[in-house]
């Protein structure tokens, strides 16, 4: 991307000697570059482990999520309850596994929707020279200036019941929450992409592509977009974190999933009143969110570097 460091002469020698040796296919080459990024690889391992734990954890740990046991309230970690219990004596391990599915799914889906929408809007705005671009940016500004909570309340009261009727209680809320979160997060991506497009579309290599008869779509998809992707990947990883946290806010306000369905954010909020007597209750979901967000961030970092051929790794 703009401002990246050019290869030093010494690295040219290195690439030259490598060139005389083996050749890698682009996919393998990207993997080789990604694997140089140790933090990214470690983060990848952690994220995969968490996803596996969430997907298959219930078969190994088959304690029900809502088994109330008042004789074991607010217990710290033990062999019987590895993550301890909450104020109703429910097993936190089981609740974390169950909640992780929802939190991760919401986070990833909302990020995907927000980034796709933002990229499309930003790309159209960045390529148009007339009023379309300005109109789209006004729309983004409009969305940015809307007060978020009243809007959320309105949207959810308007559509929750319809969606529940169509997609079932959990599916309906899931779709609604993803749309609502993505609807609030696409504007920064759109602005970012538009800014990148505005500078990239004037670059000589785009003009060269045009001179060689590349259609508008080809110019955008093949030549401009790959060059604009770096900041978008980073923004996307931040969006995952924001979406996980936004979901917990919604659940806390009673606008998201019903209170008896645990999500990481929900568990964290429930725990906040017992911080002094049962810190483990808040620490465990907090650590899970923290680890997820951090690993996704590092993976994004590694991906950006691996996919930018100018960076010598």
């Amino acid at each position: 991307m703009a401002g990246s460091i050019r290869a030093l002469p010494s690295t040219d020698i290195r690439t030259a000697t490598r060139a005389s040796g083996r050749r890698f296919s682009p996919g393998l080459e990207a993997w080789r570059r990604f694997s140089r990024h140790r933090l990214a690889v470690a983060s990848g391992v952690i994220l995969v482990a968490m996803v596996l734990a969430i997907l298959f954890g219930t078969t190994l740990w088959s304690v029900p999520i809502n088994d109330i046991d008042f004789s074991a309230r607010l217990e710290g970690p033990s062999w019987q309850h590895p993550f301890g219990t909450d104020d109703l004596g429910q097993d936190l391990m089981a609740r974390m596994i169950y909640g992780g599915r929802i939190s991760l799914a919401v986070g990833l889906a909302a990020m995907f929707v927000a980034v796709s929408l933002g990229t499309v809007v930003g790309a159209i705005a960045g390529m148009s020279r007339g009023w379309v671009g300005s109109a789209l940016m006004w729309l983004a500004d409009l969305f940015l200036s809307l007060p978020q909570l009243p809007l959320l309340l309105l949207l959810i009261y308007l559509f929750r019941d319809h969606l529940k009727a169509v997609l079932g209680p959990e599916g309906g809320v899931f779709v609604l929450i993803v749309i609502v979160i993505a609807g609030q997060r696409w504007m920064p991506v759109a602005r970012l992409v538009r800014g990148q497009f505005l500078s990239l579309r004037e670059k000589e290599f785009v003009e060269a592509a045009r001179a060689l008869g590349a259609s508008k779509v080809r110019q955008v998809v093949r030549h401009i977009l790959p060059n604009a992707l770096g900041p978008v990947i980073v923004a996307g990883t931040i969006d995952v974190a924001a979406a996980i946290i936004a979901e917990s806010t919604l659940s806390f306000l009673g606008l998201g999933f019903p209170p008896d369905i645990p999500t990481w954010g929900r568990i964290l909020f429930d725990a906040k009143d017992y911080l002094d007597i049962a810190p483990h209750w808040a620490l465990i979901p907090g650590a899970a969110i923290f680890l997820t967000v951090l690993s996704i961030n590092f993976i994004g970092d590694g991906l950006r570097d691996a996919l930018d051929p100018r960076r010598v790794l």
Partner: protein
Amino acid sequence: MGAPLLEIRGLKTHFATDDGMVQAVDGVDLVLDRGETLGVVGESGCGKTVTALSVLKLIAMPPGRIVDGQILWQGRDLVPLRGRELDLIRAKEIAIVFQEPMTSLNPVYTVGEQIAEVLRRHEGLARRAAHAKTVEMLRLVQIPNAERRVNDYPHQFSGGMRQRVMIAMALSCSPKLLIADEPTTALDVTIQAQILELLQDLKSRLGMAVMLITHAMGVVAETAQRVVVMYAGKIVEEAPVRQLFGRPLHPYTRGLIRSMPRIDRAATHKTRLEAIGGVVPNLLAPPPGCRFAPRCRFAAAVCREEVPPLREIEAGHRVACVLAETIPP
């Protein structure tokens, strides 16, 4: 003998700015025949590049607009074309090489991928065939180790090598006309010579026409057969290269030739290099008569009032100066 390869008639390309219309190209007539090398010279801002970009309709519209004129490609007007039709002319018929080899290649693809993209798109070659042709093109522009270098990224090439890649890309679909827009300006002198030599060599081998845009008279003298001198959006003189250098008629052309450093004179004559005083006029409101009149040593009253027409003085030698014959050489 049908229509010439490229004929530009009365081309006017204007740019809308906040201050008014900039008349970047204002009534240019040009003819280019098959296999010919035409040099287009003039100082910065005289409209050479805009003329070239107009041919391929590569000017940004808006603010730019082809206000008037025709661009006849083998008798067919390119001005009204758009979309797919235009894409087919670009690359396959007319290709262009830009001034800036450092930034004209997409940094995220290997050079091979970029050349192959053109081949697959326009020539419909399969992946493997396109790759083979790409290596062949890189060999043609004399890139050493072509089969290995195809897989390198643009940042792994030097400026001169990148310009070779750009030329290879431009030539990959065997265009009939190559527009070279100051192809050597961003390169150092030894590389300039190599690139010009390469262009000459390729031109004679592939039999294409070349429109060479430059501000360096020396480059034109070496490579072009015919020269067009532009000033402030108009053609001021047009002649075969020998006549232009042997008997320049327009005061501006003379100024350009005199402002060239001459290795054979400087030592004996101990004179200062001559320069043309003043700057290019503001094209928002060009002077009413001859556009060069304010800077011209010989300008008479008539020059400031009437726009001088392009007159044919001798065969193939046209000049837009009323006083051309009377000015002492």
